[in-house]
């Protein structure tokens, strides 16, 4: 469902992605591991449509359609969801207002009927209960005054509510203690489905103890250097990224 072909991306003069190829199938959980500064976050932003990145070559196909020309909200309506490494605080915008605006905007874009308040509330409350998101959090402005763990839970709550086809988790484990990591991982695991793919970007093996990947890709210097099964993550845990950084470009 997600196919990235020979993707080259620059920011200004600096080349970040250098001929990256990657496929994530329906129902697959693919992990991308790699040292800092190799373009993992750039990859997540380019797929979700953030401005400021210049794609000089290549394609990003979602279910066969190249999405690179689409605006971020159009990609979201087609099922792309990015769980942010650092969810943004938006003072003055109530969490509920935001959730409703997002859900209904996607439904409109897909030609579906907007959800009415009671139905919407029911869905939010169910998802919130599963993820241990307290009502008080839903009443506050979006992500404001939330702890790191609360922010990540809110990301997963949005994921559950929006039911995307492709979930990109960008360093979701950063800033989480073990308890929060378990709650967030359980939330993600509950969303695994045969028509939904996951791209789990992480620096450490730890997250993959909780979210078991089907495939593991090692990314360094702007491309995928090696792919394998879950055992690759364990291998990296002992050997580190040294071998990949060392390879001459």
């Amino acid at each position, binding site marked *: 469902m997600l196919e990235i072909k020979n993707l080259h991306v620059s920011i200004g003069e600096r080349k970040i992605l250098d001929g990256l190829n990657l496929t994530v199938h329906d129902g697959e959980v693919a992990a991308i591991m790699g040292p800092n500064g190799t373009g993992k976050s750039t990859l997540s932003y380019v797929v*979700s*449509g*953030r*401005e400021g990145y210049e794609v000089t070559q290549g394609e990003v196909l979602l279910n066969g359609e190249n999405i690179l020309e689409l*605006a*971020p*909200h159009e990609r*979201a*309506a087609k099922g792309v*969801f*990015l769980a*942010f490494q650092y*969810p*943004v605080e*938006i*003072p*003055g*915008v109530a969490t509920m*207002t*935001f959730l409703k*605006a*997002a*859900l209904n*905007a*996607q439904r409109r*874009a897909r030609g579906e009927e907007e959800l009415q308040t009671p139905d919407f509330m029911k869905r939010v409350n169910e998802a919130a209960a599963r993820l241990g998101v307290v009502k008080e959090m839903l009443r506050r*402005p979006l992500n404001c005054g939330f702890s790191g763990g609360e922010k990540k839970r809110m990301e997963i709550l*949005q994921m559950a509510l*929006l039911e995307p086809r492709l979930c990109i988790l960008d360093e979701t484990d950063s800033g989480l203690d073990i308890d929060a990591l378990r709650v967030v991982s359980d939330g993600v695991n509950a969303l695994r489905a045969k028509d939904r793919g996951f791209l789990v970007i992480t620096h450490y093996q730890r997250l993959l103890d909780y979210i078991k990947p089907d495939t593991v890709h090692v990314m360094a210097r702007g491309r995928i250097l090696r792919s394998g099964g879950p055992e690759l993550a364990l291998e990296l845990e002992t050997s580190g990224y040294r071998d990949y950084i060392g390879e001459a470009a």
Partner: protein
Amino acid sequence: MNEQQIEANLMLASFFEQRKNDAASDLRARAWETFSRRGLPNRRVEEWHYTDLRAALRQIAPLRAAEPAAPTLARERSSCRLVVLDGAFRPDLSDLSALPYGVRAQSLREALAQGEAEVLAALAGDAKDAALALNAALMQDGVVLRIAPGCVLERPLELENVVSGGAAQSVYTRSLAILGAGAAATLLETYRPLEASGAQENRALVLSVGDGAKLEHVATISKQGEDAVRVVSLLATLGEMSALNSFCLVEGGGLLRRQIFATLNGANADVAFSGASLLRGRDHADTTLFVRHESLGGKSREFFRHIVDESATGVFQGKVSVAQAAQKTNGVMQSKALLLSDGASMNNKPELEIFADDVVCGHGATCGRLDADQLFYLEARGVPEREAEALLIEGFANEALEHVADEATREALAARISAWLSGREVLQ
């Protein structure tokens, strides 16, 4: 001084001749003397540096000779309403018979004719500002509201300042609300035109909040015509343990100067001013406030949001001064502006002047554009760009609304902000 300015001064002097002989004659004469010495404020006067009233008032509009017939005034909420139309209090448009127990209302004209000491004392406040002095010298009428000590009002009182349309006119009014010790009330205040015009309004509201009294004040200043000139002053004095929470929504239109002069006379008084300005076109809106802590343990909060679009100009000047006697003062001031176009501008100037050594005071001011990270976050969740912008702008203004205590009032204000936003031009 050029010819037009000489003519403007002569016009104002003739207004003064018409009303210098009532019970407030001493007060008027002193105020006129202050005004004559200073002249109309212009850019060389520090407090008026960003708003040139002299240039805006080259042509002084005449006073209206006859009172207009009673118009039908839409009623937005259930409240006890008092109406000042153009330069006169209008009992025929007001709910005088529905005033709650413990509240007295009369016209300023009548109060001055009776010459009550309490009224004259409340009027005699701060008049160093030339525009305010002009208001004191020329005040035509207004409402005098007295709320008895200990009287706690459940329903809000509403003071409507309405200006009729047609040919440009000058309007000078001054109203008073005097809260006795321990009284509690909500005062809603509106400034609005019946139809857009180039009226020149100079209106003032004097709030005297007695010891232990509590006042919630919510003002709205509606859109006016491009040629309109409005000076809206708020003077507040606070007694011991009293509290004033004042919010104002400004919708722009022509030139507007809103100025607040607040003095915390009694110990442990608590004052909060907040507001949101929505400016577009060639709107020029200036909010300038002076908060003086004169006594021990006072608390002051100022929280303002300005949304400036197209070629509009916003001004915020906030000066908090803490006298030597005002130890244990706690003051926080924040003013943030959101600029939505290249032509929009904002002058943001907070100031502190502290003579006491044991105080906690801070201020912050920012001007910026919509935050790219916030926009992308919303868009990545499926919200289209325009809608995402609207959510952020609304959220920015809503932060100021959080300072309004009453939920229904807050919702009504939020609806006005959304309505303003929906009129935003799409420049794409």
